[in-house]
């Protein structure tokens, strides 16, 4: 055999499915790949090149070659990858994995990619998931959330009928300026102990005002309009669905990307994730505030109402906002001011 490409690689041959091995040589001809025992000159096995599988190597460890009859050849000789025509994609991948100054670029790219995914990738995924969620399902969420709210936390409103009617009429003033196909905006009242003056929006468009809020601020239509507009803002921006999908996808990405991070970081990661979700929630509050101010103006109410509300609930603020689901009232007031300035210009 005087073929010019004739090469012999030294290594070890493992018997089929066995821990037993002998020193061996691998030689190739255009038609055959042959594994032989150099001591006895015996051919251990042979196969055509397309039957032989070169295992994907990782790092600089030994390379394994698997024969169809389950002989395995193991070698440290890097020539094996050319000899057995390792796919180009594999070789490029290994080339970029080599520890060298070039990796600094990969690090920068990885950090950039993490930021990009955080800023654009996740929102796109989340928007896609929101878009795929059928409206009927969302209305169903409202019904069942309200039911479990009534079961565990809330009781029937104790407000006089006349006062409720007035707030309903207020909502009717806002609705002509709201265009949300697939969402059914309706207002209900509940008595919920220990949450103070509060309001919430369910994804399908159900708005809930607490008795406390209405009895304290019910005489201030600008304020109630502001609060309702804010809650409609949550509905319009699909905030609750987004939070659901967002926390699910960060959880999955973390679980899949991080791998084994060790016992301490494992438990810290979960807490970190909760803090991050809170920051997401604060951003949504500001978004809803902005939506509210646009809507209030269109419906000819005054944004001063919202300002009075934030002033009144300042007492509920902590002093640190990063552990809170809502921004500080101070920051929200500032947000209103900057909105007005933009309008003035």
């Amino acid at each position, binding site marked *: 055999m005087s073929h010019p490409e004739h090469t012999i690689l030294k290594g070890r041959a493992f018997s089929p*499915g066995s821990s037993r091995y002998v020193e061996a040589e691998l030689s190739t001809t255009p038609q055959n790949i042959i594994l032989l025992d150099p001591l006895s000159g015996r051919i251990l096995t042979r196969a055509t090149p397309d039957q032989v599988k070169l295992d994907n190597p*990782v790092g600089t460890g030994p390379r394994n070659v698997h024969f169809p009859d389950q002989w395995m050849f193991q070698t440290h000789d890097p020539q094996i990858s050319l000899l057995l025509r390792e796919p180009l994609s594999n070789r490029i991948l290994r080339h970029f994995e080599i*520890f060298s100054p070039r990796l600094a670029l990969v690090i920068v790219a990885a950090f950039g990619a993490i930021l990009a995914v955080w800023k654009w990738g996740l929102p796109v995924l989340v928007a896609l998931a929101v878009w795929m969620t059928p409206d009927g399902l969302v209305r169903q969420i409202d019904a069942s959330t309200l039911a479990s709210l009534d079961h565990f936390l809330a009781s029937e409103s104790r407000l006089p009928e006349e006062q409720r009617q007035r707030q309903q009429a207020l909502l009717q003033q806002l609705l002509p300026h709201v265009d949300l196909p697939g969402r059914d905006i309706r207002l209900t009242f509940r008595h919920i102990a220990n949450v103070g003056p509060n309001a919430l929006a369910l994804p399908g468009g159900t708005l809930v005002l607490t008795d406390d809020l209405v009895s304290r601020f019910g005489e201030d239509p600008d304020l109630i309009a502001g609060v309702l507009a804010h809650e409609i803002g949550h509905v319009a921006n699909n905030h609750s669905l987004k939070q659901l999908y967002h926390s*699910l996808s960060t959880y*999955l990405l973390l679980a*899949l990307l991080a791998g084994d991070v060790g*016992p*301490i970081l494992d438990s810290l990661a979960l*807490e970190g994730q909760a803090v991050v979700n809170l920051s997401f929630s604060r951003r949504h509050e500001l978004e809803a505030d902005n939506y509210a101010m646009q809507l209030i103006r269109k419906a000819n109410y005054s944004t001063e109402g919202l300002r009075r509300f934030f002033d009144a609930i300042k007492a509920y603020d902590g*002093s640190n906002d990063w552990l809170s689901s809502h921004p500080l009232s101070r920051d929200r007031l500032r947000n209103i001011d900057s909105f007005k300035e933009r309008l003035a210009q």
Partner: protein
Amino acid sequence: MSSQENFEFRGKAGEWFGIWIVNLLLSILTLGIYSAWAKVRCKKYFYQNTWVAGRNFDYHATGKQILIGRLIVIAALAVYALASAFAPPLALVMILILFVCLPILVLRSAKFNARNSSWGNVRFNFDGETGEAYRVYMGIPILVALSLYTAFPFWARATQRFGVNNHTLGKTRFHFDSTIGPFYKAFLFAAVFGILGFVAYGLYVIPQLMELQGAAGPELQARMITTMMVGYLLLLVTIALGGVIYMTLLRNHVYGHTTLGPKQHGFRSTVSVGAMLWLALTNAIAVLCTLGLMLPWAQVRMHRYLAQNTTLLPNGSLEEFTGEIISDTNAIGDAYSDIEGFDLGLSI
């Protein structure tokens, strides 16, 4: 013949860093899809660089298999997340279904991992039976809960027995059995550590809360929140370290009482609690301070320490292991254990 063969980890932090960061970049750019191939490269790197008695380990699953398993599990999780939002009763049904399926998932995951792992040219296998998996991962946990967790070490022993005794190297079976004493010892050590953590938390937080009681100024509130946060983080770390103590004691014990085949090749693990606590703590600090960039270094460091303290005690020739390759491509159980972190619970 009585000799000893030390385990050796030949991986290097720099080399693993290169592979890891490329894995990370590609996984992010593909929004997580490449993470399936990244997992294979990670396992291959650590397996291929672990040597004992002149032969290394290897991992044979493919990225495609892992990806399919993950997609199925993620689809199920998404349905569950939606269900818990729009129809809590349905979510409850799903949790029950999952609870019923859990032993099967654990079993599938163990089979998949064993059949795709090899030493030399011999594949491992796992042949635990479904009924037994139900006994170990459903029956006993219920009894343990009824005992208010005082019987927890019995469950720990049952899982180690199930995990070790059903593993084979080729056709040669592993064997583990032990009295209950050492399991109670590890459990009590960790429990005492955990309780001390709670006591320290109380001593740290309660006096400050007493002092601040009734005060309502924003500054005092901020101090209170900071105190509670710091205390909570310390508590988390203490509990994690309690877990490290438990795993360390159990590992040494399980290796010491495991044998392989009729010749009874033995194993020995000499991991020390102090060293493990130090490694866990310094690794976590290094990773945190470098925004994760030192993670590969930390992983290699931990692996090397574990390998250095693991020994095979051969009792005769190691050339006689043999078996067939059973192809296993169903990675659903494996994907579930990747995402939810629940597996056999083997102390290795």
